[in-house]
């Protein structure tokens, strides 16, 4: 089958749209290979050559597919199958033989486009997918329009060009597919809202979600995160009682094992069975009302559930771990939405487990910590060294010794902790939290490191808090004793202040240097900041209304329209009724009487309508026009009857002149209208 160059180009456009989102995952050689295949195919079409030889196509298929599979590995996931599918599609282009081949190519392109949305359902990607669907449908429409109409001239009319040649515009199929898409929107929306969400869970995949915070803290980990503007989660406070940003510590992971010489920490998990978290009132804090908030976590490969410190009650059906943290065991790689309540004036009060074990540290480090303990003991022998006092001494040491906040602390050698504490004295939150927790343990104070986020970015448009990866933060927690709980110690906070940086705390404790720059930002920064807020807001609405639409909200919708308790039956009934109505309305719209674009033809059409009306009126009076009777014959016969009808010869004559005589002018039609209306 000869495709024709235009059809081929449309198909190529469709395949290109389907290929583009996968550019990053394609093997390096695949793009040049695709371009070569494309050029070859176009050249063959231009020279009207038959399809390439069978053996050549077969050899190409085997070589290219084998290379792709070896390159990316053969796994079940949609993402890893994409490069193979893509190269197969482009090879398919070489041997399109039938309408089925064309359609199958287009359908496979649709599948590729949809598969991108599986792992990246953002608004931008969805918009791209819509455009891609538009182009793919246009290719299909064009394929069915490829036989350009043969016009005999005369009354034939295309758009507005002179009769005779059918005008050919490349964009015509786009009109067709745009029309199709727009007309399909109501039905698609109905399906989206009403098709019952199944509760199947077949998770077999691992998406490409952001990595975020890991279960280890090594110097440098957080520094990398801090530079990323990726959103981590979005928080809404339904009661509009958002705490001060500097008090917003988002607890994610608790690390309770020091590693190496004490600057690295990792997690040691123990499950706990509890309905509520053990909390204790923080004597130092003012009394506060519990805060309820709704978190939308972006898709992440990590199971952490982030909660404002200190969370009252863990989520249902979620694994609870020591250290008042929770994690999910399924649905990794997907976004998550949950509501929690926290009491900011309370502290965690879980029993310290192995928080006394002390890492093998440099003797100097040990000596430093022991020194604080002795000092505390000396000051208050009754309590054999109050923990709070030891913490205080430690913090004071950091301030006095001139520690500096820096995202580039440099290489710390074999003994990073000692180098950091006694030589460089430069680091960021990860360093300070890990070092301080280690020091506390050396001073026999149970301590651990908490990793999460701090603060966030207030979006005034959408009235929510946006927490980005750049808000990643680590801090230490020290056990004050039974009944007093764990006290949060955030040395970085002090360092940043000690450094004399006045910057508004909120945003990133991590980027204290950057906050200085924020103070004198230019119009561009402010504008881009504004844009970013808008973008966050739009993304948030998209997430909330579209991506967050689930079975619960379907049930709520049924509730709202008075079909509570109908469940799936209600949804399907609504779908049947609504879908039928939408299609019927569309059918009426599509089949409405259309007025011709050509004014001449409009006049002829009107004359015809008038003539039919006249004939109908005559039929009522008992004189029916026979199917084989032309206007003049009818007029003659009527005149011959016993009851001649006034005006008939003239109506017939005018109609004949307009319809067949090429005399379509306004005055004649007007005269005819007057005559017909007299009846």
């Amino acid at each position, binding site marked *: 089958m000869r495709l024709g160059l235009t059809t081929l180009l449309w198909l190529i456009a469709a395949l290109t749209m389907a290929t583009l989102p996968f550019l990053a995952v394609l093997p390096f050689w695949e793009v040049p290979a695709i371009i070569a295949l494309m050029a070859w195919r176009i050249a063959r079409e231009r020279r009207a050559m038959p399809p390439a030889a069978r053996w050549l196509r077969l050899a190409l298929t085997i070589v290219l597919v084998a290379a792709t599979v070896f390159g990316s590995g053969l796994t079940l996931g949609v993402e890893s199958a994409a490069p193979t599918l893509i190269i197969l599609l482009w090879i398919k282009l070489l041997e399109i033989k039938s*309408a*089925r081949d064309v*359609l*199958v190519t287009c*359908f496979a392109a*649709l*599948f590729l*486009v*949809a*598969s991108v*949305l*599986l*792992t990246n*359902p953002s608004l931008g*990607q*969805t918009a791209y*997918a819509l455009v891609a*669907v538009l182009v793919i*449908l246009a290719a*299909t*429409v064009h394929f*069915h*329009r490829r*036989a350009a*109409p*043969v*016009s005999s001239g*005369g009354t*034939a*009319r*295309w758009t507005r060009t002179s009769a005779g040649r*059918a005008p050919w515009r490349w964009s015509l199929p786009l009109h*067709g*597919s745009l029309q*199709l*898409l727009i*007309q*399909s*929107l*109501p*039905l*698609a929306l109905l*399906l*989206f809202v009403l*098709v019952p969400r199944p509760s199947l869970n*077949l998770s077999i995949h691992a998406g490409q979600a952001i990595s975020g915070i890991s279960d280890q803290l090594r110097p440098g980990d957080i520094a990398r995160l801090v530079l990323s503007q990726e959103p981590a989660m979005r928080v809404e406070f339904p009661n509009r009682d958002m705490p001060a940003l500097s008090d917003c510590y988002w607890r994610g992971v608790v690390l309770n094992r020091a590693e190496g010489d004490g600057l690295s920490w990792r997690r040691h998990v123990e499950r706990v069975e509890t309905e509520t978290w053990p909390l204790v009132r923080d004597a130092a804090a003012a009394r506060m009302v519990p805060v309820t908030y709704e978190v939308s976590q972006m898709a992440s490969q990590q199971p952490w559930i982030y909660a404002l410190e200190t969370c009252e009650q863990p989520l249902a059906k979620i694994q609870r771990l020591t250290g008042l943290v929770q994690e999910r065991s399924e649905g990794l790689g*997907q976004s998550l939405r949950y509501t929690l309540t926290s009491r900011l004036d309370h502290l965690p009060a879980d029993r310290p487990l192995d928080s006394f074990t002390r890492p093998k540290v440099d003797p100097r480090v040990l000596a430093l910590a022991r020194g604080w303990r002795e000092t505390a003991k000396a000051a208050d022998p009754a309590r054999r060294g109050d923990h709070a006092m030891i913490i205080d001494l430690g913090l004071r040491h950091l301030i006095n010794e001139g520690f500096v906040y820096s995202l580039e602390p440099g290489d710390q050698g074999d003994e990073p902790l000692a180098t950091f504490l006694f030589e460089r004295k430069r680091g960021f939150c990860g360093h300070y939290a890990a070092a301080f927790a280690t020091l506390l343990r050396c001073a026999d104070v149970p301590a651990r490191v908490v990793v999460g986020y701090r603060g966030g970015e207030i979006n005034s448009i959408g009235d929510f808090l946006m927490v980005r990866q750049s808000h990643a933060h680590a801090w230490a927690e020290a056990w004050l004793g039974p009944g007093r709980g764990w006290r949060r110690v955030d040395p970085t906070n002090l360092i940043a202040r000690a450094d004399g940086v006045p910057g508004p705390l909120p945003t990133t404790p991590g980027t204290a240097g950057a906050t200085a720059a924020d103070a004198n930002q230019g119009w561009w920064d402010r504008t881009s900041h504004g844009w970013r807020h808008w973008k966050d807001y739009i993304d948030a609405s998209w997430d909330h209304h*579209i*991506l*967050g639409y*689930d079975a619960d909200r379907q049930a709520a919708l049924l509730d709202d329209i008075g079909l509570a308790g109908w469940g799936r039956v209600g949804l399907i009934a609504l779908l049947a009724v609504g879908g039928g109505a939408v*299609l019927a309305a*569309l*059918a009426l719209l*599509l*089949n409405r009487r259309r007025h*011709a674009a050509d004014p001449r*033809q409009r006049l002829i059409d009107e004359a015809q309508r008038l003539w039919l009306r006249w004939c109908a009126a005559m039929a009522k009076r008992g004189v029916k026009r026979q*199917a*084989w009777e032309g206007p003049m014959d009818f007029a003659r016969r009527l005149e011959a009857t016993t009851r001649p009808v006034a005006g008939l010869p003239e109506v017939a004559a005018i109609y004949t002149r307009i319809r067949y005589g090429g005399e379509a002018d306004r005055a004649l039609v007007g005269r005819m209208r007057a005559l017909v209306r007299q009846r």
Partner: protein
Amino acid sequence: MTANADEFDDLPPSNAVAEALPVAPAVAPVTAVLDGRGARLRAAPTAHCLIIGLVLAAMFMAAINYRSNAAWMLVFLITAVAAVSSLHAVRNLRGLGALAVGEVTGFSGDPLRVSVAVRNRGALPRYALEVSAPGFAPAGAQAQAVAAGDSLSVDLAVPGLRRGIHRLTRLRVATVYPLGLVRAWLDLPAAITLVVWPKPIGRDLEQLGLIDDRSGEGGDARAAGGDDFQGHRRMQTGDSPRHIDWKAVARSRPLLVKDYAGETTGTWWLDWSATGLHDVEAALSQLARWVIDAHARDARYGLRLPGREIPADRGQRHRERCLLALAEYQGRPAVRGSGSETNR
């Protein structure tokens, strides 16, 4: 004067069979437009629907698996597009009318070419129309488009039919536009008569040997030469173009035919009993062969069938009347009755 006549004799040689066998696409003039209004439009999913159904099902399952509402939305959108495309397919046919009236003749076994036209009375161009005649002709290979207000001429190739009178009463216009997922079709009324003559096979006319010979001469008087030219008469439908006095035409005179005396002298009687064949179809084929031979010789000939006799005459019209009689022969007096002979 005979030489004058021969000057314009640029038609194919008068080999009887050679002249008769090529398919003669005799298309009767279209006399009326049959209205498509009221004809029922129907639609059904095509096999391609199954393919996109599978693709959509795969996408649906993947969307469930990934809990991706965005992918889900795309699945629904494509489903909706498929549903809406059926409305477009139906609209693509609405308001089409057929110009398919007349009569087509041909020999049994030879393909017939039926010319029909589909008229687009709507205000929109129509695409990918496949015109076919259910039971007779399949649709052509390539679907065609027709502009608004224009007509689409289609030659339907009706493959070899059996001898007889066939009536083509429905013209089917189908389309898979715009996406190939739904096929809509519309049966338009048609009134085309397919007259299928018996296949002309059998013995030569010479072997017939039955000549009502008034002048004692053979059938081919003109070949015998001589000044048998009798004068001019007005041309009638069915007269051989070879006998037209083209020079007279060149002088802007009406179409005149040269009359030859010798032609009228012999009359062949093509008699059923003379075939000596018992098989009806074989006998009819033999008679058809003789009719064609006799016509090619421009001879006067008559046809005798059981229960029916067509008086001797000559010319194209006579030839077709004889062939029609053969086509509609049913072993007893013909269905059309003798009255139709004079009507035609």
